[in-house]
């Protein structure tokens, strides 16, 4: 009498299946849905880990209003790629010893991951990583941006960051004179 087994029991089975689902669905500010490995999301993002633990994950797509679809796609892509490269025990122990170092160097695939991004996409991703509490992704993106800045003139940096120069000409000249050695090449 399988059919008559009872609604309650079927419900129960479905719930168990849900709890066992290994992905969560995230919804970007512009309404697009993305699936991400639950394990990786919980491991890489403190915010998502909190939501998963607190049961505030929506099956129809958890709203992330602060994150655009392009950035969210990159976040999800990063999480899924990370899930595929789950560190072995040896790597974990070596990464523990790395913790004494100030910043961890990005791994090869992480480097490639951020290298292909446009400036805008990179900056959006930094903010998404910050919002989601993704320390590792923040590390990787900040590293990339700092690499882009090295050796650049203040003008070039303003362009990349889209920053308005709020100094007067005189103020700028003053700084350059005070710290002349740092501006040797400009």
């Amino acid at each position: 009498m399988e059919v008559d087994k009872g609604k309650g029991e079927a419900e129960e089975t479905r719930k168990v299946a849900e709890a066992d689902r290994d992905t969560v669905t995230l919804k970007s500010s512009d309404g697009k849905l993305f699936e991400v490995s639950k394990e990786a999301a919980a491991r890489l993002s403190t915010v998502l880990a909190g939501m998963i633990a607190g049961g505030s994950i929506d099956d129809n797509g958890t709203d992330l209003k602060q994150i655009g679809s392009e950035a969210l796609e990159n976040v999800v892509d990063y999480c899924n790629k990370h899930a595929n490269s789950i560190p072995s025990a040896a790597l974990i122990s070596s990464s523990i010893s790395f913790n004494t170092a100030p910043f961890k160097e990005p791994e090869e695939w992480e480097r490639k991951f951020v290298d292909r991004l446009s400036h805008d996409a990179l900056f959006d991703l930094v903010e998404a990583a910050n919002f989601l509490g993704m320390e590792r992704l923040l590390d990787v993106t900040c590293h990339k941006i700092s690499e882009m800045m090295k050796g650049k003139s203040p003008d070039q940096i303003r362009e990349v960051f889209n920053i308005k120069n709020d100094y007067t000409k005189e103020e700028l000249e003053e700084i350059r004179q005070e710290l002349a050695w740092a501006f040797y090449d400009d």
Partner: protein
Amino acid sequence: MERPDLKSAESSRDIPTNILQDILLRLPTRDVIRSSSVSKLWCSIVRDPSFRKLHAATSDVAEPDVLLVSVNSEPGRRDEARVVNLSSSGNNSKDMRHVGIPDGYSLTGVCNGFLCFAIDYDQAPVFVCNPVTGETLEVPKAPPLSHPKLGGGVTYVSHRFILGFSPMTKQYKVFRLSFPRYGAWQHNTIHIAVYTLGGSGGGWRQYSYPSQFYPMHSTPPPVHIDGDLFVPVERRVPERTARMLVLDVGAETRCLYSLPYNHHEGYDPSWDMLADGFDLKGQMCLAVNVIYPRRKLQFWVMRQRRELRLEENNDDKLYWVLRYSFDLGDDSFTLGVPRGAWLDQAQMLCYRHGNYLYKHGTYSSWFHVGSLLFFDQIVELPETPSPSPSCHLLTRLGSRLANGISWGVTDPACSPLSPLRRHHPKTKRQRNNCLSTPCYVLSDSTKFGVGFLCVLSNRIAS
């Protein structure tokens, strides 16, 4: 300067300040300094003391920047300490900063990239300068000796001011070692005064201990390595003897060790020390000029302190290992005191004499004591140092420039001066008599007098 509101700049990308700080923290010092001219917000981030502290703590030691600090003395001009970054990218070493030295002052030491200036015969404030930012800190003048007669009718004393850093306590300390001036060798007390920068006040502390070994003007300058100060000292009676005084900056304990050339035949104790100390991969190394029977340049490395037995005045025990020995043949340059040795980033042992740079690769392990080496490269340097510098000294300090940015010292008794403060008309007048206004003139016509090579260390934090 007020911190501009992020939101007010509508056209700007709205990067949260914490992210911006995170990005800037990863930059080398030079880029950090340059970013202060990007915008007022950036400037406020970079100038924030907590940022500097973090930057110092997180910066990378893997690529130490080596700074050459030399003192240019030219008649009719004020002495100037010239700081050159030997590690900067490209082949040309670049002038980083010139610091005008006030009358009567001299460069007495370098530590983690900081320069220490003092007057060695008088009561005067000590200045510590950060060549990266141009900031100068004035340390209140040391008190008169608690025993002005040095216990035996001597009125005249000399001081040796030394700046040291303790990685354990993360504190900088200025030591003043006071000893009788020439002609009073029979005295046997050394007076020490210590001032802790950024400490909880307290000012100078004084104490003394019996010793006939003093850091004299003829002895090479002290070397700071990882919390220890290596101070060459001498006594003149009953016979002239040199020792290495090792002063622990944190604990302020001290030990005396014999020197390698007291053991070495062909080294006459009546000579001034023909030696110069530097930091060789974290070990104290002495470059010693041997004249007889054959001209050699020897590099002796002191055993690690944990291997040393703390015995004072033990001449039978050799605390040094001969690491490299170069045959200098008839080279006339060997006649002077060796000045300036360091290990560069490619592990080449560099030795600077006059306007030549001698280099030797240290990676080969075939060397054993007794075999003589030759320098692999001799590079002629573009500038002409003065032919007979009174004291031309190089010391290796290791680190990325980043660390130099950290002043991190907030001592109400000291007066740090920010290089970024507004210019005011007094600047020019101050320049004539006050160290606190560094001179930024970049010139190629300067001559080398005293030279220090220092490396900005990572642990400079505060």
